[in-house]
C-alpha cells in the first residue's frame, strides 16, 4: 500500500500555485530544465517531451506545526508535512506548487516526527477538523502565524529564481500569478466539479473543487497547475494586447514634449508573444483522466480556449496588417 492509503482518509486538500515567466532570454532545453529542477539529489526530475516539453521536480517536504486558518475563528492546530514541487513548461513557464491534505480527525497530541514523515503531504488536525470553516479560511489566506501554503510555494520559487542557469533577461514584461485551491469530497458518488473560480485580486485566483473521495492530492495539484498555467497565459497575452495602441490615440490637452515614441511598435510588442507564448496552449496535457472533465466545464463557461483563440487570431491579424507595406495601406494601423 502506498502512503496515500495508509493515512487516514483525507476530507480536504489544499494548495497554491505560483506561475511566472522564466527569467531567461532563451527557453531552457530539456537538459537545462532537468538541471534547474533538481531539487533533491536522491530523486530524478521527471522530463517528458510529449505532447509538449515539460519537466517536474521531485516533491520536497516542509514540516509544519501551526494553526490552520479558519473563517469562523476556530483555532485548529495541525502538524504534518506540506509537499512542494516545481514544474517548467516548454522551458518557458515556471510554476511552483505546494499542497497538502487533511484527514477528518487526528490525535489530540503531537506524535514523533517519524509518524508524519511516512505520510508526506498530510497535515493532521488536533481533534476534529471543522472542514467548511477551514476550507474557507484556507481560500481567504491565512493570518500571521497560520499555515500559509503560499509561503511555501513562494519560497521554492524564490530559490529557483536564484539559480545560476537563469540569465535574468525575460523577453517580455509579465506578472506572476497565484492560484489558491481547496478540494472537498463529492457527495453521493458524483463526478468532480468546480464550485467556484474567482479572480480575487489582480494576481490571485481562487478555486474551490469537489473531487471523488480517494482522488490523490498530487493529481488535484496537477489539475490546478494546469489551470494556473493557462490562466496565466490568458492574463499575460491580454496584457500584451492591452499595451499596444492602435491609431493616433486620444488627443491631449497639451502636446507632450518630444515625439511620442519610446513606445514599442505593434510588431515589437506582439513579437514576444509569438516567440514565447502562443505555442504553449495545451489544456489537459497532463491532467488525470478522472479530473479531465473539469476542463470541459471551464471550456463551456467562461470558455478558456475560445478566448485564447480569439486572442491568437487578433495577434495574427495585427501582424498581417503590419506586414502590408505602408504605401498600400489606406489608413495607418498605428501611430
Amino acid at each position, binding site marked *: 500500500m502506498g502512503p496515500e492509503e495508509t493515512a487516514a482518509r483525507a476530507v480536504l486538500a489544499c494548495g497554491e500555485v505560483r506561475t511566472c515567466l522564466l527569467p531567461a532570454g532563451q527557453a531552457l532545453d530539456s537538459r537545462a530544465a532537468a538541471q534547474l529542477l533538481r531539487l533533491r539529489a536522491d530523486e530524478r526530475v521527471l522530463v517528458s517531451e510529449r505532447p509538449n516539453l515539460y519537466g517536474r521536480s521531485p516533491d520536497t517536504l516542509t514540516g509544519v506545526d501551526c494553526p490552520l486558518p479558519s473563517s469562523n475563528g476556530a483555532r485548529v492546530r495541525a502538524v504534518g508535512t506540506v509537499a512542494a514541487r516545481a514544474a517548467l513548461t516548454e522551458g518557458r513557464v515556471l510554476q511552483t506548487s505546494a499542497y497538502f491534505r487533511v484527514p477528518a480527525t487526528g490525535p489530540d497530541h503531537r506524535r514523533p516526527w517519524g509518524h508524519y514523515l511516512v505520510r508526506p503531504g498530510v497535515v493532521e488536525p488536533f481533534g476534529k477538523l471543522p472542514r467548511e470553516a477551514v476550507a474557507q479560511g484556507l481560500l481567504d489566506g491565512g493570518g500571521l502565524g497560520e499555515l500559509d501554503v503560499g509561503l511555501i510555494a513562494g519560497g521554492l520559487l524564490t530559490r529557483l529564481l536564484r539559480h545560476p542557469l537563469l540569465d535574468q*533577461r525575460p523577453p517580455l514584461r509579465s506578472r506572476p500569478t497565484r492560484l489558491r485551491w481547496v478540494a472537498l469530497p463529492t457527495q453521493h458518488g458524483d463526478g468532480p466539479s468546480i464550485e467556484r473560480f474567482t479572480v480575487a485580486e489582480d494576481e490571485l485566483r481562487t478555486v474551490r473543487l469537489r473531487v471523488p473521495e480517494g482522488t490523490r492530492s498530487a493529481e488535484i495539484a496537477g489539475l490546478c497547475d494546469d489551470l494556473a498555467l493557462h490562466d496565466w497565459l490568458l492574463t499575460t497575452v491580454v496584457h500584451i494586447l492591452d499595451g499596444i495602441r492602435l491609431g493616433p490615440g486620444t488627443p491631449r490637452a497639451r502636446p507632450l514634449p518630444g515625439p511620442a515614441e519610446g513606445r514599442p511598435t505593434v510588431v515589437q510588442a506582439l513579437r514576444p508573444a509569438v516567440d514565447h507564448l502562443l505555442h504553449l496552449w495545451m489544456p489537459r496535457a497532463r491532467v488525470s483522466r478522472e479530473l479531465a472533465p473539469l476542463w470541459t466545464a471551464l471550456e463551456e463557461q467562461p470558455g478558456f480556449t475560445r478566448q485564447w483563440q480569439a486572442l491568437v487570431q487578433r495577434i495574427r491579424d495585427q501582424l498581417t496588417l503590419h506586414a502590408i507595406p505602408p504605401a498600400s495601406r489606406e489608413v495607418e494601423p498605428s501611430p
Partner: protein
Amino acid sequence: MLVFAASDKGGTGRSVTSANLAYQRALTGDHVAYVDFDFGSPTAAAVFDVPGAMRGTEERGLHSYLEGEVTEPARIDVWRQTEHPLLRARPNQSGRLVLFPGDVGGGEFATDEDALERCVDLLLQLNGEFDLIVVDLSAGRSYAVDLVLAATAHPRMRYVPFRWLVFHRWTRQHVIAASGLVHKENGILKGGVDRGHDEETLQGAIRFVRAAVPDPESPLWLHGSPAQAAWMQACDEALRRLAAEHRIGDSVVLGIVPLEPILQWREQLITEEDVLSTQIANKETLEALEEIARRLTDDSHWGRP
C-alpha cells in the same frame, strides 16, 4: 529600467520629484513601480495620497521584507487606492502605477548578505514586471545607497539597466553637497567601485536634477526690482560656474525643475488639471517634469548616440 533617486541632503524635493516622474511615465503607458527605500522618513504615501491604503502595511513594508520578516512586500495600486479624486480616474491607456511602501517607523539598518540577496530578488522581480522602477533612496550616503550599489553590482543583476538621478537645490551648499555625494572619497562612485562597479560606466549612468530653481524670467519674479533681477542673474551665473567646477555642470544635468509654490508647501503630484483648470501649478513645472520623465530613457541624454 531601474532609476535610483538620491540626494545628499533632505528637502531637495527628491521624493516629490521622483514620484512625479513615476506618475508622468505611467501616464504615457509605462508600467511603473515606485519603491520607497527612504528608510526612516517615508513620504510616498502623502505624495500619492494613499493614507488609507497605508494602514495595515506598517509591518509588511520594504524594511520588513529586506529583514526577512515577510516574504513579499506590500504593494499599493495607486490608481485604485489613491484618495486624490483626479488620480482615481485612471486615464485610458495609462500603465500601472504601483507603490511599494516603506514601513512606518523603520529606520536604517545594517547590510547583510541575506538582505542583499532579497534586494536583488525584489529588483529582478520588478524588472520582469515593470517598464520603469523608480527607487527613492534615503538622503546622504545611506544604507539604502550602499544596498543598491551592491545589488546592481551583483552577478544576477548584470543585464538589468540602471540609472541614477541626484537631486539638489540650486544653492552653493547644495551644489557642493551633491557633488560630494557622487565624487568625494566616500561618495557613490567610490562606493560603487568598491562593490565591483566599473567607475566610468557608473559615472555615465549618473545625472543631476536641479530642483526648486528660481527662473529669473518667470512671472513669479516679474515684479521684482531691476536690482533684484540683476542680482539673481549674477547668482545664477556664479552657481553655474560653481557647478561646473564641481563636475556637475550642465552636461550632466538631466533637467531643471523650476521653483514651484505648490511643491514647496505641499508634496503632491502635479496633474494637468492643476495647470489647466485650477491653474494652481505652473505650466513650466509640469513641462519640466514631463521632459525629465521622457529623458529618463532617452539615450541621447545619457551620453549614448
